[in-house]
């Protein structure tokens, strides 16, 4: 009786169907149809995971370590993570109850946001940002509140602008430094001012520090080390970038135990535990990966210097990115929108970059170029971009 006559309910939840399609997806589809494309659109390392880490994964499988681990992740791995954070970040977390191993920073981000967000809660994040941030907040029934950063101060967060965006519904601030897509880092005065605002308004802070090993001009300072910040910070980190382990899907979150407990609840129902083979490989990364990690970092630095120098020579103004492996040059002088610029560059010269607008407010007028690709390709890309920019100027 029922069904056929009644008005059909929407099959997909409204807050999901309302999510905008990713601006990156469109370029992915375009690029897939073309030959001889040099892609500067790849947000992952161009290295394969160092052999010693891969070999540990193989060994883990050989020994038959194929079952679940504890929800929080193997204790030896959590111990090693906390030791690593103490040694390199001066952070002090307890492996027993302040650290949870996740399926990449992606999952850590998801459970951190879900653990703290009630429907209608606002979460402020600096923009342009990693594409998942606003979507993750929306999926948790929160309200994403972007605060644009500015190239004039190297895309560092503007504490005053963040403070202005705070309302009684604000629950947390979400930041990512070194930043995808700008390569900006956060230190000194800007870091302190951000911490002051968060403390003054009694907010939580989610800090995605996934690129923190990849800094080139100064050592990374975690915001959780500032006075009064540890108790209100959820620190997110992982292995994808610094150890070239994107496909292993492994990361972690560290925070005070009440927050980790809440995240663990979601994680235990939704995920159970991160992949065992990836956990054992991650353990090897922390135990014996320092040298390989440093080699990769130095290689990104070399490429950054050449590539960013080249962009500025071509006439695309680019602030020196101090971290990650992205350059975020301004294309405003071309007179094109960032999407048009990227489309035309792809069509005319077969070079793929991502329009800054795909990364949210503040991204328009810029494009993201990943320099995690071979030097020869980078140099050829520079030649092609130079030719393209020249042809625009002549018109």
């Amino acid at each position, binding site marked *: 009786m029922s069904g056929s006559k009644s008005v059909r309910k929407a099959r997909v939840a409204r807050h999901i169907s309302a999510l905008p399609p*990713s601006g*990156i997806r469109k*370029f*992915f589809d375009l*690029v*897939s149809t073309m030959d001889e*494309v040099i*892609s500067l*659109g*790849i*947000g*992952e390392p*161009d290295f394969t995971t160092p052999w010693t880490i891969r070999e540990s994964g193989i060994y883990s499988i050989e020994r038959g370590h194929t079952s679940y681990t504890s929800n929080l992740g193997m204790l030896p791995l959590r111990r090693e993570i906390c030791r690593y954070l103490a040694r390199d970040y001066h952070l002090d977390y307890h492996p027993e109850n302040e650290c949870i191993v996740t399926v990449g920073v992606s999952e850590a981000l998801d459970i951190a946001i879900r653990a703290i967000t009630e429907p209608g809660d606002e979460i402020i994040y600096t923009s342009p940002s*990693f*594409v*998942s941030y606003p979507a993750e907040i929306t999926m948790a029934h929160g309200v994403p509140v972007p605060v644009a950063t500015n190239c004039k101060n190297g895309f560092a967060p503007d504490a005053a602008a963040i403070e202005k965006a705070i309302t009684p519904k604000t629950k947390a601030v979400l930041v990512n430094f070194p930043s*995808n897509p700008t390569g900006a880092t956060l230190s000194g005065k800007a870091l302190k001012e951000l911490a002051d605002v968060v403390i003054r308004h009694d907010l939580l802070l989610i800090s995605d520090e996934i690129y923190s090993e990849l800094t080139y001009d100064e050592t990374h300072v975690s915001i959780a080390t500032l006075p009064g910040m540890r108790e209100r910070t959820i620190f997110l980190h992982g292995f994808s970038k610094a150890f070239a382990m994107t496909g292993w899907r492994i990361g972690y979150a560290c925070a005070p135990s009440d927050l980790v407990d809440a995240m663990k609840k979601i994680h235990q129902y939704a995920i159970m535990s991160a992949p065992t083979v990836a956990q054992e490989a991650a353990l090897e990364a922390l135990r014996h990966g320092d040298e390989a990690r440093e080699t990769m970092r130095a290689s990104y630095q*070399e490429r950054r*210097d*050449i590539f960013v120098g080249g962009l500025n020579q071509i006439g695309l103004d680019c602030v020196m990115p101090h971290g990650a492996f992205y350059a975020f040059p301004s294309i405003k002088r071309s007179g094109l929108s960032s999407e048009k610029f990227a489309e035309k560059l792809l069509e005319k010269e077969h070079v*793929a970059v*991502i329009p800054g607008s795909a990364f949210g407010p503040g991204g328009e007028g810029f494009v993201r170029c990943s320099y995690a690709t071979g030097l020869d390709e980078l140099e050829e890309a520079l030649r092609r971009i130079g030719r393209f920019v020249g042809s625009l100027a002549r018109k």
Partner: protein
Amino acid sequence: MDKLLKILSENAPIDLEKVAKATKSTVKEVTKKLKDFEKSGLYHGCTAILDDSAYDKEQVRALIEVRITPRREGGFDQVARRIAKFPEVSDLALVSGSYDLLLTVRGSSLREVANFVAAKLATIDGVLSTSTSFQLKKYKESGHMMEDDEEYERLKVCP
């Protein structure tokens, strides 16, 4: 042997401009530094990494372990230097363990290498014994894998 390969195997050119760029210096500075390295005995030239078997199936390489008696004056050096002079010998080192010298010998056929061992090497005064292992397949040289893993395609665009 192909002329280009021969040149590469003896003294491969260096892309000075590329090196200069990578070390943030000039071609002139790099050239000067190379000269200094050469003078100090650190740098002895640059050869290409080749898999001989790929262009000539008959090419052979042999690893030869040699036991020798040290000379009263020159120790092992005198004998080792004498052996090193043969153009057939591409690498030679004094090693610890159950034999004294380890050499790599190249030849255009098995017979050529066998002849070299029997007629030249074994007859040198001071050489007590030799043990020859022919190389069957090379997997890695100077840090380079001889066979690349299958192409594994990454996503062309990702966040």
